[in-house]
């Protein structure tokens, strides 16, 4: 929580800092924190953006009452018009994408531009956005996350004592002790005054830039935010020079949500390469930062455990006696949690976000969430009444004059608007299992089972389907056709047949055809293919070709509109498995090793 409060304070100090994103599971006190802060800081409540807010309410629109009664077009600014306020967006990950993008863009530009319903208006916008997101429901796209200067992960508080404190403070909500905190206000004011005098030294900038580079931060916003936060942090401490600790804090809150790489190879830290703040300082710095990043990961692991996962806490507690399969379930779960946590690393250029984005699609039917309106098509039944009235409003006076009627709202066919709706798509988890070769078969099959059970525990939502396909020289096909019945899955996996040779290319084409057909039949679904193999192809479709090269060639053409792949390398070895790597590149699929989960396990246990 300390980081969160500090980040909030920084947000108040530098007007060029526009956004803070607070991530954490439901009930971790995200919103309570912001509300109490906004009261402590200014005595004012933060403005809250409700989930079902429309663009009109947020950005402003025609004043309907005025238009209908007087026929005058008066613009009514939205929530963003409040000067210097804090706008709190709860669960920003559930807002329509265009709304959150426009929101963040307006804040960054410092003005809101509205072109709607006959009005063209631009008005200044000087609010700070504090948003909360709970990635378990619907991950926030990386482009929107990037627009937040800072991001803090709040774990669910496990400490009993703290919980009691929280309850107390919530219950005593209206007490005076939670009023304006003069000391805090004074501190922020002092900091704002000296902010301009602080120059950021070159060595600090160098550290910031190198760190951005190390974690694959895209674009310039990450570096810029870090520089600004470092400065604000120094100002808050009353310093005129930026200290190592300021930079370390800034990196902690500005980089993790922007990174596209996880540095697993922390052992090979090129510590001698960089020399800032003097050698020993730098070592400490790097160390701190690594620790923090890991802490982050750990916190989210904690979050995963705290969530009522299907596996339940009992397994977690009964260490030592557990069935090896169950342990793997947990390991896998951790791996996929880590993937979730680092959702940016799962995606590469050009394909990032697409899988997640597609969980929302425009829907022509009548179900789904009403997000905006468009001109009504002939004989629509899904009329957007509010929008229609808004469109007709400015013309009422004239129409009344023409028709001589003076009661009611006169609506012409050209005003009619119909609702544009979006709905959740469902997802097919397609496990493609290489069940050839006998060397590590037993371990591999356990891992497969573990992965499937863990994925189901974590990702399965009502309506999602699971399918298992296996391939070896004897049989390429569906062991389990797409099903929504999770119960049957476990049984089937126990009976996975084994074989010797690996017809990878044929299996890939089979998968492509099968998934392609599945998606064609279900135009709103997406498929998520988890390929589990060591990529040791030794059977080609065309005898003259090298089996592996053939598989690579096929893999590089396997693209389906709504399909994403992940490759889990099942080869148990310390040597890098170049073949699986190449296959993952060809598929444009993120690459994970079974070892990865062991090592991440070690890290977490420490």
């Amino acid at each position: 929580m300390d980081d969160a409060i500090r980040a909030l304070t920084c947000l108040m100090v530098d007007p060029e800092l526009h956004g803070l994103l607070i991530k954490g599971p439901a009930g971790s006190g995200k919103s309570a924190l912001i509300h109490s802060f906004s009261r402590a800081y200014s005595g004012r409540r933060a403005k809250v953006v409700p989930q079902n807010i429309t663009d009109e309410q947020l950005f402003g629109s025609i004043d309907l009452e005025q238009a209908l009664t007087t026929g005058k077009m008066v613009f009514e600014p939205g929530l963003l018009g409040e000067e210097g306020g804090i706008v709190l967006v709860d669960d920003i990950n559930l807002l329509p994408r265009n709304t959150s993008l426009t929101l963040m863009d307006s804040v960054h530009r410092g003005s809101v531009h509205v072109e709607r319903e006959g009005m063209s208006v631009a008005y200044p916008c000087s609010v700070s956005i504090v948003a909360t997101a709970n990635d378990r429901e619907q991950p926030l796209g990386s482009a929107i996350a990037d627009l937040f200067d800072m991001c803090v992960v709040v774990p669910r508080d496990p400490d009993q004592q703290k919980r009691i404190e929280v309850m107390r403070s919530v219950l005593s909500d209206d007490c005076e002790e939670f009023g304006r905190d003069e000391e805090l206000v004074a501190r922020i004011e002092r900091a704002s005054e000296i902010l301009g005098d602080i120059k950021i030294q070159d060595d600090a900038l160098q550290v910031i830039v190198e760190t951005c580079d190390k974690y694959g931060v895209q674009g310039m916003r990450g570096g810029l935010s870090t520089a600004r936060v470092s400065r604000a942090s120094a100002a808050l401490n009353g310093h005129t020079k930026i200290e190592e600790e300021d930079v370390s804090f800034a990196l902690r809150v500005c980089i993790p949500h922007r990174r596209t790489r996880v540095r697993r190879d922390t052992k090979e830290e090129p510590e001698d390469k960089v020399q800032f703040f003097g050698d020993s300082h730098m070592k400490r710095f790097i160390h701190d930062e690594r620790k923090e990043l890991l802490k982050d990961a750990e916190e989210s692991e904690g979050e995963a455990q705290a969530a009522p996962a299907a596996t339940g806490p009992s397994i977690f507690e009964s260490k030592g006696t557990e069935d090896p399969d169950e342990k793997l379930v947990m390991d896998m779960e951790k791996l996929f949690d880590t993937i979730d946590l680092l959702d940016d690393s799962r995606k590469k250029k050009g394909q990032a976000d697409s899988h997640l984005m597609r969980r929302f699609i425009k829907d022509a039917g009548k179900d789904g969430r009403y997000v905006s309106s468009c001109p009504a098509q002939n004989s629509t039944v899904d009329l957007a009444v509010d929008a229609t009235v808004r469109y007709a409003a400015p013309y009422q006076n004239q129409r009344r004059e023409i028709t001589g009627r003076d009661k009611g709202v006169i609506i012409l066919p050209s005003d009619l608007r119909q609702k544009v709706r979006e709905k959740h798509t469902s997802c097919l988890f397609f496990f493609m299992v290489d069940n050839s070769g006998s060397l590590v078969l037993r371990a591999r099959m356990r891992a497969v089972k573990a992965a499937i059970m863990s994925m189901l525990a974590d990702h399965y939502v009502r309506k999602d389907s699971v399918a298992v396909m296996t391939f070896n020289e004897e049989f390429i096909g569906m062991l389990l056709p797409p099903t929504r019945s999770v119960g049957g899955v476990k049984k089937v996996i126990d009976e996975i047949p084994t074989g010797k040779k690996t017809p990878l290319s044929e299996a890939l084409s089979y998968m492509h055809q099968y998934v392609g057909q599945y998606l064609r039949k279900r135009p709103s679904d997406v498929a998520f293919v988890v390929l589990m193999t060591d990529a040791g192809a030794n059977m080609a479709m065309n005898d003259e070709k090298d089996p592996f090269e053939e598989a690579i060639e096929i893999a590089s053409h396997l693209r389906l509109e709504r399909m994403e792949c992940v490759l889990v390398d099942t080869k148990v070895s310390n040597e890098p498995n170049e073949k699986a790597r190449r296959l993952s590149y060809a598929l444009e699929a993120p690459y994970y090793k079974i070892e990865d989960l062991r090592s991440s396990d070690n890290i977490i246990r420490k």
Partner: protein
Amino acid sequence: MSDTEKRLQFPFVRIVGQEEMKRALLLNIIDPGVGGVLLRGEKGTAKSTTVRSLAQILPQVPSIDGCQFHCNPDLPRYLCDDCKKRMGAGKVETHMRSMKVVELPLNATEDRISGSLDIEHVLRTGERKYEGGVLAQANGNLLYVDEVNLLDDHIVDLLLDSAAMGRNFVEREGISFSHPARFVLIGSMNPEEGTLRPQLMDRFGMCVDIKTELSPDVRVEVIKRRLAFDADPEKFTDECQDETDALREKIAAAKAIVHDVKVSDKTLTAIAMVSIQFGMEGHRADLAMIRAAKANAAFEGRDEVIFQDISSTASLILRHRMKSGPFEEAQFRQNELDSILRGYLGS
């Protein structure tokens, strides 16, 4: 855009790197016939900053007094009905105005894009009075659509129709109306957030793929400049005012001579061959290449297109139009282009 807002934009001449994007934008200002630019790139690569800062260096163009579409008297083919009448009667006064960057917000509604009729005025006076929308403002200007890939389909259709015809047709309240809408379409998008419909893609004369500047020194410089700008925008802007003015004049000078830049038959042949070799369909790419090369020559102060002009601009036009085969991603190769050009032009 008001003067104060223009000042608050980060100065164009102080944007670090991203030379390809800057060049593409300048060429389009010099000759709007190039056909617009699509900026594709990661988040945080100064796409919007650059486009918005263009306002500082846009040249002056003549405009007919009292016309809400700011018709240009030098382009008689693209006048609005009213201006046509007045020109015919010889009753027009003109003034010079700065071109500007008009923005299309993501959540704009279509009546504000195409505009609407003032019914009251029509009934009272029998004259059509049209309340201009974004497309009216955009006429003779730059139209910037941020996150163009996220626009609603019915908005994209509206935009495409007017871009294709150079005119905007309004049908509302039973009365039809049309006005010229010729603009340089500038779109930006982050490909991570979804693709663009192919029809819209082809509409853009040029496409620039933007990458993050990677070198640490460059990154440090970017942060330094931005912080210096935030600290005192006016001082920062003043310090490079001379440079900004010089660039604006250079663009204006290029705009004045661009139509006189000579293109030899040899050059035309070379461009045609490039088009054929790179499998371009239709003539849009050919024309864009010629216009871009001419604009580039004019910008460099030459009155003739040379090898460099085509070689440095053609990739912007060809890359996004190349057809991907069923078995391979299309790849643009600069040396392939250069060798074709050399074959016809020498180097």
